């Protein structure tokens, strides 16, 4: 059996291509910015894939390997509501099974929709314009910890060493 892929980072990007949450699990921790760039550049490939999937009338969420760069392999996934999930897996010389990657994506997707379902995200928001986009973005904001924790849980299952939740507050600033 091929080894389980190692998760370096995960990014959630809103349908309007704004970042919701980017979590890095890679050691050392200093090159977090790199994963922000990876998430951003992946959008190019994702949009291309979505376009070709739409042309083929496919409803496939999993967008397969987007590209490899330096030491990571970047995979993409788009939820039916067009939230993009991007995984950066450590590049190893082994076959990465699609079902494994899809399993991580599904876990991440679940973490996301459980978190967005939080009704308190919309507290204080103007009622008449309850737009999910704002709630989506605020789910990843520093104020709400549950999303982060759920994502970290998935990361921990994937073998990433996550420091205890104390360091969470500093990793994100939107």
């Amino acid at each position, binding site marked *: *059996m091929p080894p389980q892929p190692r998760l370096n980072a995960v990014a959630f990007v809103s349908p309007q*291509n*704004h*970042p919701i949450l*980017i979590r890095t699990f890679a050691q050392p921790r200093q090159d977090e*910015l790199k994963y*922000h*760039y990876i998430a*951003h*550049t992946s*959008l*190019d*490939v994702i*949009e*291309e*894939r979505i*376009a*070709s*999937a739409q042309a*083929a009338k*496919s409803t*496939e969420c*999993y*967008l*397969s*390997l987007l*590209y*490899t*760069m*330096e030491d990571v*392999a970047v995979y993409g996934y788009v939820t039916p509501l067009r939230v993009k999930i991007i995984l950066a*897996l450590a*590049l*190893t*010389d*082994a*076959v*990465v*099974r*699609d*079902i*494994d*990657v899809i399993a991580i994506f599904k876990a991440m997707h679940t973490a996301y929709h459980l978190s967005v379902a939080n009704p308190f995200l919309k*507290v*204080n*928001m*103007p*009622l*008449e*314009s309850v*737009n999910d*986009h*704002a*709630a*989506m*973005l*605020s789910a990843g*904001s520093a104020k709400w910890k549950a999303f982060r924790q759920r994502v970290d849980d998935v990361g921990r299952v994937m073998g990433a060493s996550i420091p205890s939740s104390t360091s969470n507050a500093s990793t994100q*600033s*939107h």
Partner: protein
Amino acid sequence: MNSYPPELLTQLAPVMFVGGLDPPPASGKTTDPFVVLSHRLREALVNQRKVAVWQPEKKKTFQVVPVDKDVRFPPRRLIPPEHPDYANAHSPLSPLTPSSPLYPDGLIAPIWIRKHTRLVPSVFVIFMRLFEHAPTSRAPLETAEVDREREAEERRRDTELCAEIAARKKTVSERGVKLTVVLLASRKLLDDPSLDGRLTYIRRQSGLDPRAALFVLSPVSQSEIGDFVRSLQEALYEPAIEYYTNHSKRVRRKRNRHSQVASSYPITQPIGSAPSRPLRPEGWTVRYEYKMACFAEFRGEDEVALKHYQDAYASLAIMFGSTAILPPRTKRWAEAKVLADCINLKICKLYLYNNEHSLALAHHNSHMRKFADFSRGWGIGEETFEFWSWLARQHRAFAELLEHGTRSTLKIPTHFSTTPPSHAAAAAAVQALESGQRGALELEAMRALGLNPNQALQHPGFYYYMSARSTERRRERFLGVARSEAEGETTTAPPPGFANEQKVDHLALILELYTRAYDLFKAYTPKDAHGHGRLTLWIAYRIAQTYYESGKFDLAVRFFERIAKTYRREQWDSLLRPLLTTWYSCAQQMGDMELSVRLLFEMLGHGLKTQDDDEDSTQEDLLAVLKSSVPSSTEEPLLIDHSESEPILQTCAVFWRPDVLVGEPVAFQLSVSSPTGVSLSSLTFTSLVIHMSGDMPTITLRNSSLDPSAELPQVQKVELDHIMPSGEDDKEVQAPLRFGVGGTIVFCGTVSCEMPATVKIEKLVLTTKEGNWNIQIPLRPLSSRHGGAPYPRWLSSFDPPTYIPVRRDQYSSVVVRHRPHKVQVSVTYNAPAYIGEEFPITVGVSNQDDKEMEMIVDALLQPAELDELGENHIRMGDERSTSLIKGVSLGTIAPGVSTSMILYLSSAGAVYDRVIDISVQSHREMPATAEEPESPQSPKSPTQSRIDRDETIRTLVVPSVQPISIEQHAVYMRSLKSQPGLADLTTYEDNYWDDGDVGEAIVTTTIACTAPSGIIVDSITLTKQDGRHAKIVDSALDQVMDDFLAEWLTGDEFCDRCRISLAARDDLPEGQDIPPPGSYELTWRRILPEGGYSTPATTRFSLPTLRPPRDGLIALLDVPPTAQLHTPLTLRLVVRNRQPTRSANVVVHLETDNSDAFIAAGLRNGRLPILLPGAEETVLWRLVPVECGFVRIPRIRVADRRTDPGAEGELQERIVRIVDVRADERREVKEDGTVEEGPQLAEPVILVLP
């Protein structure tokens, strides 16, 4: 790839030497056809194949080298063949030859390849001129002698040619090279019969091969030259392959011999030279395998070549594994490394030729990994610049190889398919994986499961990018060494390559690599992408960084400007922040003060610090810049627009209510807050100008807090009081305009407006003046770029600050409206409306306002699905419409005055509720304020602001009912009239009326009054509309009696009977309806509740359509209703056969009985003559009644005798129905064709009077 010897990389092809073709003369055009031919041939041969790295086509083409006719080959051995040691001697390039560059332990040198590509051919083609006499005119007398002379001359020349060829042949055969001679001759000579003989002579004399060794060519056109070149190569390809195969065989023999006796080679060491180690057996293996690979490549056998290259590579890896075999940092070691890299590239290329992308990448990756491991052992691990330089070279070479490939045949695969792999394949893969089968299937199986990302081929841009990244690392390592060298800290000597490395312009190299990556990324962006190119932006960012590193700040700034645009738009602030920091450094270096100021303001908005852990650093930098410099232009204030980027201050305007009435004040709050994380406390803003929409005055806030050290509360509140549009000057308020970290100033006030309008805060302009700088920062309220935070909120208590969240949508503006008008609209009518009448609806309008108003009424009859024909309409005065009546004026109505008008609804058609919308619009002119100036800033149309409109709407649902209901039914009577004769001429007349066939219909019409209020009926008439088949004979209405024309109340009924004569003509098909021959018309009026009558209305309805039944065989009995005792009466029976096709055989019985009240005379039992279709027969009896009262007539039985099909020979009797014509009432034909009979008396009876 340029850093490797090109010989080791190029694609090899069989080499052909071409002699005897001169290069075109430098000047002047020649007309000699042979010179032209020679030039063309040379061009065609030389240009057909370019030396290139990527050439996967196998087209039997040669690498053609033009040479001199007498070219000499390099010697095979150093010593002449006569020497006794010749057999033991080695090639000059062999490591065994002391003078060789490879002596004593070299592996293989590029010169060896060069020998085989440039110096030794596989075939040698010589172009030679066949001797011809000049075409001179000759005298007829001396023919014989001249001919002889000429022949001798020819023979002599040919012999010379043969000698030359034979000499050449000798040298080439030594090396096993095939010699081919192409003789150039004129077209004339080609036709000469003596040519064959000459050619045979030449071939024999010169010892040429019998096959493919001698060609003759005459000057031909360009395309024919192409054909010739192709056929020449095709003919020579096989000998060339044979040549290389021989070489391979020779090398394989040597390798086998060598592997048996490991080191049997005597080493001939020159006396006096230092003893050095000879080439190890592994080295020999590498050498032989490499040679065999090359020869296979010459032959175009890619798979064989790949196999040998792999063997050579494996042996090389063994050699590198031991420092004893290949001591690091020696010349041989460096050569071997280059060889290994080149073999790797060859292997990758051969895989890629075959579209084995993942195998190629796998080999390339393992090469890099393997040699990275070796490098660590050699002391040039990842901490040295040498390692990174080597790695960058690998990536680059691979990228270049891909680029070469993509330019011709290589296609970069896509790793995404929209169709997921079939489940069967995936299942098979899992099974194969679990059962541990490691077969050839495995690779395919794994592909179905997923792919190895490390072996997913991407476009070359990625590899250039990797190369650039490696070069960046190389530069870092180099700078590290250089620093420690400069500081003199190190005790060890600098690394060996340091001196060389110092000469390298790393940044230029990085830049070049990034630029190539950038171009490729751009080229591989799909055409239909929406112009984002985020990948290219990322590379561009790296390029900008590199420019920054190399001190080209202006170039870097240009890149940053472009990149920042996208990052700002997409709100990826995490990417924008480092960019801004670098950009600011560039601006500082360039001394561009305005740019610095702009960037510092943007950085303040992002909460960026120029120095870590000092939250004041950014504003201090800004203050320092402002104080120490002057702007480029002092006249115009510097405008810093934050509409795209994060603004320096978050602003939010909230109005307490979404809409107010004219003149009513509404409270608002404008909060301005600084970003968290950065302090703005030292910045002094001179003023803040608030621009509101419409005629509102601008409010200027002047800074009152001049003490920069004063303590700043978190929330400050400034009262702006009441603001309303007025002619007076703009307002000025003093306010502290300083912000702490995350500080907020809330401006509170109220606003009111005398005109309907939408009031909002349009923009704020923040001004700061410092020295010569005059900076204006426009801000837009609610300019938070993020979807949510901060949410709008209302400061409800100042100390401690508490907020109420504003959860409305339209919180940032307030709509000012007019007061609603007090207009009362009443609608009265007497429901229900009757279909057919004009129904009055009274609309009463009363002005209860305190102002005089002009009123207009609109009425709309809602269209209904049932009313397709537009039968309904409404009327108001003279205006009449099926849907909308618009703008019926009621005039100006003074306060307290009421008026009314009547709307008529005429409904027709079906019964349903009619819906009418009535809208009463009231409007009044505002008193025009004369002093109001028409300023261009406040474009307000008079219709909107001066006219005060309001509207009152009523919707009525008017039920409509039928005032009367009608019920009709028809019965049909047979006629006793006999059929007209066949030749009766009257039947041909137009007005001939024959009702004998069908008879008559009697229609009973019952009219009932259903109007709840009752109606008065003015008249009922039956209008006759005689048709071809039916006409009204008479009706009960004919006896005019006016007593029914009275008031009908609900439930009152009126009945009329109408007799209609029917004529069946030939043109009426059976089963078709007869149109009604007339209609009733009822004129009526509604009885009003107060006793009067409304306007007359008319209801029309027609008689029903008629559907008379038809008979078959029938007997009609005509009995007089009364008889006198003892007076004879006649009983008549008519038997009619109305069957269309069958004749009838009718038997009649009169069954007298003793109890009968009659004495009968006539037929008792008898058969009637056969009745043909349409015929009838009458039977008469005389009866004498002998009893009084209602007596039954004797029973008569009529039967039809006929033979049923199937019942052979047996007569069956069918009883024929006897109808008493006095009580003949048939209903009409129903849908299923049956006829409901009227009530039939059991037995016909006669009233016998005494």
